[in-house]
């Protein structure tokens, strides 16, 4: 196995890329995230934070998706 450290999506810095390993978000948001392409195995990059620090602007599957830190902290990733 590769020795990569698993962290959560909210720890990503602008410009950093990662691969999603698990989505632990619950409720309706869970399915909505899946619909938007946030599934295990997808590559994701943090583009920037909103001017007030939250939410975040991520690039995934070739488009920009914005979610709050709260949800991002329940999405597990491996940094690339």
């Amino acid at each position: 196995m590769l020795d990569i450290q698993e962290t959560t999506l909210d720890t990503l810095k602008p410009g950093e890329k990662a691969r999603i390993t698990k989505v632990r978000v619950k409720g309706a948001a869970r399915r909505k995230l899946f619909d938007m392409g946030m599934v295990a195995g997808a590559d994701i990059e943090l583009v920037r934070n909103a001017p007030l620090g939250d939410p975040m602007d991520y690039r995934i599957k070739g488009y920009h998706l914005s979610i709050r830190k709260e949800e991002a902290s329940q999405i597990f990733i491996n940094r690339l």
Partner: protein
Amino acid sequence: MEKREIKIALTGNPNVGKTTLFNALTGSRQHVGNWPGVTVEKKSGRVSYKEYDIEVIDLPGTYSLTAYSMDEIVARDFIIEEKPDVVIQVVDASNLERNLYLTTQLMELGSEILIVLNMCDIAEERGDRIYIEKMQELLATPIIKTVATQKKGICDLLDKVIAQKEVEQHHGHEIGYGSEIEDKILEIEKALSEDENRDKRYPLRWVSIRLLEGDSNVKRKISDSPVYGRVMEIIDSIDQEEYEAEIADKRYLAINTIFPQMCTRANDTLTKSDMIDRVLTNKYLGIPIFLALMWGAFELTFAFATPFMNMIDIASTWFADYVSSSLQPEWLASLVGQGIIGGVGAVLVFVPNIFILFFLLSLLEGSGYLARAAFIMDKLMYKIGMHGKSFIPMLMGFGCNVPAIMAARSIEDEKDRLITILIVPFVSCGARLPIYVLFAGTFFGRQAGTVIFAMYVLGIVIAIISAKLLRGTIVKGKPAPFIMELPPYRFPTLKTSIIHMWDNGFMYIKKAGSIILVGVVVIWVMASFPWGVEYGSEESYVGSLGHAVEPLLKPLGFDWKISVALIFGLVAKEIVVASMGVLYGSGDSSEALSERLLADPGITALSSLSLMAFSLLYMPCVATVGVIKKETGSWKWTMFAIVYGVAVAWITAFVIYQGGTLLGY
């Protein structure tokens, strides 16, 4: 020769060009309405092509067909229940991968689908290559390239639609979910199929997959079935969340395996849109630019609208006078002139405002900036228990509450939307300004500006407190998660914006119009009867009502005249000023009215302050009440908005008046 009918539905992700394509297909022959029972907009139009009469329905934009929002449920129910001959998925060629997720779901629905590859110009400019032949083969559906903005590919599309309708091929492209899930699907299918009376329009496999994904809407649909218990046993035996994740994974996996064969994407270079975002959502520049844009939009709304508003005002006043003086008998002249034309005119005055507001909003939306506005404001809004998307409706409320409440449609979460609708009426709209101008101008002299500004702040503060209060009591919970696409910036098309403006402006006239008419007539009757009294005088029913409510309003510093004016103000708040004019017998001259107000010992600076606050808060005007009813679909919430508003207004005015009296003002 009789034309043959074809019904087609346009579906697809938001922002892929559905509406543009719809307009290109149908020209101006379209009709906007609501889906029965829900506030999602429904557009249908017709196009004659060769020997066919084609009806086109523009379904709401969705990312998937799960039951996350009303839009999604409307879209899928339409496809299943109305069975359009052809379902056209409009796909953004420059964002294929995510768009195909919806395709996988549409195919499961078992309908005839046809894919329109729109925005080919953007994909080509960027250097993407899409292999159409290969794509058709892999997806087993016809694919048509279009550029909706340039009307390219429209005839080709119509030809393919006809071909599709005539051939009736069935494409059975299905995704396999792996043996474990497939076993469960089979189990559920088997259980379901034993119910002879099931709704056969819904494919068994689709229902089964939905149930495994925990779709509550589908669950409700089969809850009367005799096999419901059996099905639920199967569902309860699985790890729901795992299945949900697994099913989504499998769909994307299916896309990932075919995607590289049909498209090679240009290297990820910095697009123009990314560069614009570097400025517009910049850490330091983002907020100042946002504020400047909002302020500009606001200024523009009023600057452009004012001359038109004045014209409508003059015209309706003239018309009312003309009718009053020429109609017989006198009561009819009064009903039509003072009542109907006067009241409806007072509301029509806002039509220019609303048209311009919607036009600018459509430009902002079409350009992609509206999504950024929600992105920028979300953190602040979240702090007061609201969603980022609530910001725009609240801002629009300063112009007019009616379109503001309509704009709340873009909020998916029902609770977020409800709270927005309930607090928008506290945002001080343009119609309340004349009241402040009259009273602040009369009683506060050089401090008038400060007083007016304080009224705007008061409205915002009350809105914020109300949002917090509602969140803690009857609309419990946190704002829904913020999960939103930031679409690429585009040049909005003038035509789309104008159509958008027209549709919404017209909707306002229609909806507000009917309710206002009723309200106006009721008030006219109350002001004119019993038979023979002077209109709106002390002896009329309105006068009696004024006297009746006087004890309630006395603690706020209001006498019966102000009470009557406030009752009239229910139609539209600026009527408060007009009826003060009538009651003080000062005609239309505001200077004369000012003098008489100053001379009346019944009104002091303090009671006028209390009156301004009360007028700001006391109850949404009739047009707003009508829209609240329409948009919430519930009399209960409409009544709540009214009662809550009156209560808040009373308490606030009471605090101002009694507090002020205690302090010796």
